[in-house]
């Protein structure tokens, strides 16, 4: 195959696409890592709580913090989990379809998914905004404004919405196979069964 000289305009576009691509992938990985850090925090808090009880002390607000980190880990990991094909779905029916039917099914699923994620993000946004504007305080040992622990939930949902739209665009415009499909196939081919229960 001869390598043709790429027109400057196209090269610039390609470069811009790569930059956007790596920014988005970085966003998904970054929020996934924050979710992982939240899980570490839950673990350390619980160990500290047991240790403190041994010497007759308490970790103030450990239970509240644990709950907040738990919510943060659930939502911040969503986009990363989605991209890696580990958000579970029933593949039984759509896997029977031919290539064109499968693509259509993926587009419909992504369309509905993106709509739902948008609605979810909007209403989580409303919740956080109201907590902030009403000055709601957490009902527990730690009296802090409630919007602070609620914020990661909103951020995670927003990033998931971006990830689903990103995937929709890749499948609809660029005709790619969805990354969650290829990622799952690669993982299972490696003999990695850690996604199962």
């Amino acid at each position, binding site marked *: 195959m001869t390598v043709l000289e790429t027109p400057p305009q196209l090269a610039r576009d390609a470069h811009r696409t790569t930059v956007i691509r790596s920014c988005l992938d970085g966003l998904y990985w970054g929020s996934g890592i924050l979710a*992982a850090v939240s*899980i570490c925090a*839950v673990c350390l808090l619980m160990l500290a709580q047991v240790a403190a009880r041994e010497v007759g002390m308490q970790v103030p607000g450990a239970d509240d913090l644990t709950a907040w980190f738990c919510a943060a880990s*659930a939502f911040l990991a*969503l986009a990363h989990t989605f991209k890696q094909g580990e958000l*579970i779905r029933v593949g039984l029916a759509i896997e029977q379809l031919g290539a064109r039917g499968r693509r259509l099914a993926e587009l419909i*699923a992504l369309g509905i998914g993106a709509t739902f994620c948008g609605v979810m993000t909007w209403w989580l946004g409303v919740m956080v905004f109201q907590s902030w504007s009403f000055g709601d305080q957490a009902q527990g040992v730690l009296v802090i404004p409630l919007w602070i622990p609620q914020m990661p939930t909103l951020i995670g949902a927003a990033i998931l919405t971006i990830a689903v739209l990103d995937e929709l665009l890749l499948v609809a415009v660029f005709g790619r196979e969805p990354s969650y499909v290829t990622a799952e196939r690669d993982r299972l081919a490696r*003999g990695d069964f850690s*996604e199962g*229960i």
Partner: protein
Amino acid sequence: MSALAIGALLLVILCVLLAGGLWVAMALAAVGWIAMQLFVNAPAGPNLSGALWGSTASWTLAALPLFVWMGEILYRTKLSEQMFTGLAPWLGRVPGRLFHVNVLSCGLFGSVSGSSAATCATVAKIGLPELKRRGYDEGIALGTLAGAGTLGILIPPSIIMVVYAVAAEVSIIQIFIAGLLPSLIVMALFSGYIAVWALLNPGRMPPPEPPTSWREKFTAARELVPCLLLVVGVIGAIIAGYATATEAAAFGVAGSFLLAWIGGSLSWAAFRDSLMGATRLSCMIMFILAGAAFLTVAMGFTGIPRALAEWVAWLNPSPYALIAILCVVYILLGTALDGVSMIVLTTTIVLPMIQQAGFDLIWFGIFIVLLVEIAEVTPPVGFNLFVLQTMSGKDSMEVARAAIPFFAMLVIAIILITIFPGIVTWLPQVVMGNR
């Protein structure tokens, strides 16, 4: 429209969304959204955000990522080699010999892991090649691994039990303890089947191994010590009331790291992979729980579960008939759905009906866990079948056929706990009674 007709319509919508490949958590929440928009005079948005936040910002739920992480760490250690070496010399004389190593290893690994797939894959990693090398029947080996692998979710800690406890709002500790006796019974049924099969088919067993001395037996058993210490540390702390489930899970993570470190399999890569794997798996489960929490709220507004419960009360079926019907429904559901989805659909729709019929929620939890175990070995989507198919290179139908006797043993276990519910309820009462 009557509540039951609305319910039927929503069920059809749910089935279409699920079959269309929409992610389970989104499908559940979307059906809740449709139900609230069309049939309820209450705002859907604030209820959605409230349910999503309320169900995930939960101190009880925090046990879930930690138990998942613990399993992910142990999956990457040399525990399976240690269990095989430690157990094999003890079983040379029992009818069925090394087949029992599979059952006991799964039982032991199940006591530190909360996942059926991880238990099955970990034990099969060593059990499958070792048994094949020694000339054991591969079909029975696959069947034992598929069946006994499901012990991972019946023996505490169990991810599926945490999901049920959170969704049904019962105590995690109580349901963990309730799982202990049934898991012993299931292990006895599996081992019993293996022994009977071996006695009936002596021609298909390999020649016996050379006998081992007591000294050799005890030397080998030392390999089991780290794992047993972890079992005692985690389950013991829960039973003794020393730690809450979430605290015990954190012990479990720390203990698993210690075990991996002593065994020389702790590396930065192992730490990173186990943590990221646990983050994704628990994210998937918690998102489903959050979607289901909103669906539960929406269902409460529509009055469907209440209508269903009243309908069941009006039919007034015998408890055995109700259990038989639910068994069939869940075995069918299990052919298409994963365990977590089966559990959350139960708690959103079936639970009021179950309470109406007078069943204990802890008992019902164990019943559902046994049905999820059955689903793990039912084609076409049983995950254990899939794990073994990939690991052995056999056809999936061949693995499914090998698992049929163990499927039957699980059904017998369900019949036993239905006739003698005390198997489930007695131990939690004894242990928790004076707390």
